[in-house]
């Protein structure tokens, strides 16, 4: 079952866990499984239209799913989804 890494800002909504496991074959199914288990995450992850909220970035292992196939990006059982808030950078 894929693993989801939870950022500090979302941990209170998942009982303090740093990572959780959730079933599904693509990003949407897995995040919906997460929401089913931890309903407080729904309004933080998804917009009213069911899309990823603007300031939520989801990575399949280390690649941003927004530039892959978005919520339809396929996920294997050994994969890790990383949720991170959108942060500004500098360089």
């Amino acid at each position, binding site marked *: 079952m894929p693993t989801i890494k939870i950022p500090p800002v979302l941990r209170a909504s998942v009982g303090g866990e740093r990572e959780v496991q959730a079933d599904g074959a693509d990003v949407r199914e897995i995040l919906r499984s997460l929401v089913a288990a931890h309903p407080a995450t729904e309004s933080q992850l998804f917009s009213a239209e069911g899309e990823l909220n603007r*300031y939520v970035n989801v990575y399949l292992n280390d690649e941003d799913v927004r530039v892959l196939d978005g919520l339809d990006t396929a996920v294997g059982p050994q994969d890790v989804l990383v949720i991170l*808030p959108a942060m500004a950078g500098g360089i």
Partner: protein
Amino acid sequence: MGARELENRPCGGRYVDIVQSIGNTPLVELRRLSPKPGVRIWAKLESRNPTGSVKDRVARSLIEDAEEKNAIASGQVILEPTSGNTGISLGMICKLKGYPLKVVMPDNVTPERTQLLQMWGAEIVYSEGAKGSNGAVELALELAAGDARYYMPYQYGNEANPRAHYNGTALEILEELDSVAAFVAGLGTGGTLMGNARRLKEVLGDSVKIVAAEPMQGEPVQGLRSLDDGFIPPIIDLSLLDRKILVSNSDAIVWTRKLLDEEGIFAGVSSGAIARVAARIAGELDEGNVVFVVADDGWRYLSSGVYTRPLEEIENLESTLWW
């Protein structure tokens, strides 16, 4: 006496002042890092700009744009959020042009950045490090709002930022290479990626892959109260990116050293992350040129020990804002 021959061509050019010498940086092949003979990896050494970073191009473009628009009123202070390098570049330019400069910078960057800013005469306002660059942007916007004393170029939302690359960096790359299979740069404000992506795709078509290397901010730098504190620079258009890849701080440092040890490139930590992604993309190709941007030099990270200490002995690895 015979004619004197210039041994190293091209020569560095002749300029009326240091600001005019920004750009025209070398493109250096990194043969040892290339995983295959048919794939050539090229480093665009933006570290060779006057203050040692790619941000010289951006700062010049921001200030010249403001001057062309007569946007800076007499006596106004230039105010800008930065993780350091843009501030340092603005410091050099503002000093020469006589503009007072105030920068807002997170308090968890390396001490060299503070010294360099002080050296150029900039006033520094620190923002909370736990909020990363988001905190600097937020505070700068608050300070500038409705305060006529300030002119804020705002690199995160100003098209003059990507334009510096569209009209500079990308054209220089195209001058040297007939084809580019992939272009890899760090994602900060998005200026380097957007400007280069637009020009390279315009000239070479969609075959050129635009790849962003992105810092995986350590948990101490994810100190947001809620996701609503998130920030996406307005100049970023994600549709121009083909890949966006996270790099951890420790991988970035491992590759910063690899650049040094294997290729003799003394670069900053973000460049290590970018090199790592460039080598991965190179491994996925059969042939072609992979160009990546070395965003800054290593001098401003020396005190952190990233070049000399064992990885596990580097203090504040996760709480430092490296880029």
